[in-house]
């Protein structure tokens, strides 16, 4: 029987029926809905990139595969630094956690920089804009939304890094937040794994 004098308050239940913290379960539930979001965008791209006869240049004609491979590698490695951050925190290595957090944010920023560079190339060099044709529209909106997700992730990572610096480390509450940001970050990475293959590698005409 629960001890009423020390009854746990709402928001910090000690006995969640699933045994998983509320916020963690919430993050997983949210991420599973994001499949529907990115799925629609990817479907949109597949539809239009496979329709011939549009005027103007198709994205697949101008992909820079070596460049994108490098930035894909960068994002993939940022998932490594993310788990290392989480791992460090679980061993109470606050400095290590902080370092790896910053590294993850840095790699994310490099990836974003690559995206910006790619978009600029496409627009300035090749004249492919949002309005060139539906395939171009689809490409920009898909990778644009993915990039926005990465940017939000970088902000969250830097926030945690900042909090850690100010407070000399992450408390238990923030420790959970690091895990949650990590889940989000890995998700953004796996979406890119799909995008890299389906949108880039498989799109370019032989």
């Amino acid at each position, binding site marked *: 029987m629960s001890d009423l004098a020390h009854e746990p308050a709402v928001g910090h239940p000690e006995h969640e029926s699933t045994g998983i913290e509320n916020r963690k379960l919430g993050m997983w539930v949210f991420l599973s809905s994001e499949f529907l979001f*990115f799925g629609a965008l990817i479907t949109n791209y597949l539809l239009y990139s*496979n329709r011939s006869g549009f005027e103007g240049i198709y994205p697949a004609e101008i992909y820079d595969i*070596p460049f994108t491979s490098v930035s894909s*590698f960068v994002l*993939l490695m940022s*998932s490594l630094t993310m788990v290392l951050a989480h*791992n460090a925190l679980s061993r109470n290595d606050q400095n290590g956690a902080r370092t790896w957090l910053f590294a993850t944010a840095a790699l994310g920023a490099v990836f974003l920089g690559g995206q910006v560079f790619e978009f600029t190339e496409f627009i300035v060099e090749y004249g492919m804009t949002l309005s060139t044709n539906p395939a171009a529209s689809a490409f920009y909106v898909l990778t644009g939304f993915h990039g926005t997700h990465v940017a939000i992730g970088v902000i969250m990572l830097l926030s945690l890094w900042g909090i850690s610096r100010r407070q000399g480390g992450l408390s238990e509450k923030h420790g959970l937040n690091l895990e949650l940001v990590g889940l989000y970050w890995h998700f953004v990475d*796996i979406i890119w794994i799909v995008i890299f293959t389906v949108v880039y590698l498989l799109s370019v005409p032989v």
Partner: protein
Amino acid sequence: MTSDQHDNHPTPAQYWKIAGFLALLTAIEVSLFYIDHALGLGIFNAIMLLGLSAVKFLVVVGWFMHVRYEKPVISRFFTAGFVLACSLYLVVLAALGVVAIRG
């Protein structure tokens, strides 16, 4: 700390190895791309690339996102979303003529 259910938590060294494996797969993917453009692998290119991506996907989900060590309810949610998305959008792509359903 956070959930203490994992005694078989990967060590940092293991995480590095996993990352190396992922990097290797990526390198193979990119190589396949060039091989396909040189030799024309046909449908095998798509199958292998999708297969490699699937492996990378599952490795990140299983180890980095920790699903291997979590309670089943989490993988059920995640799988449900993924399966639903794939099913719905495959049907849409078929209806729009992008993919052909044989038979």
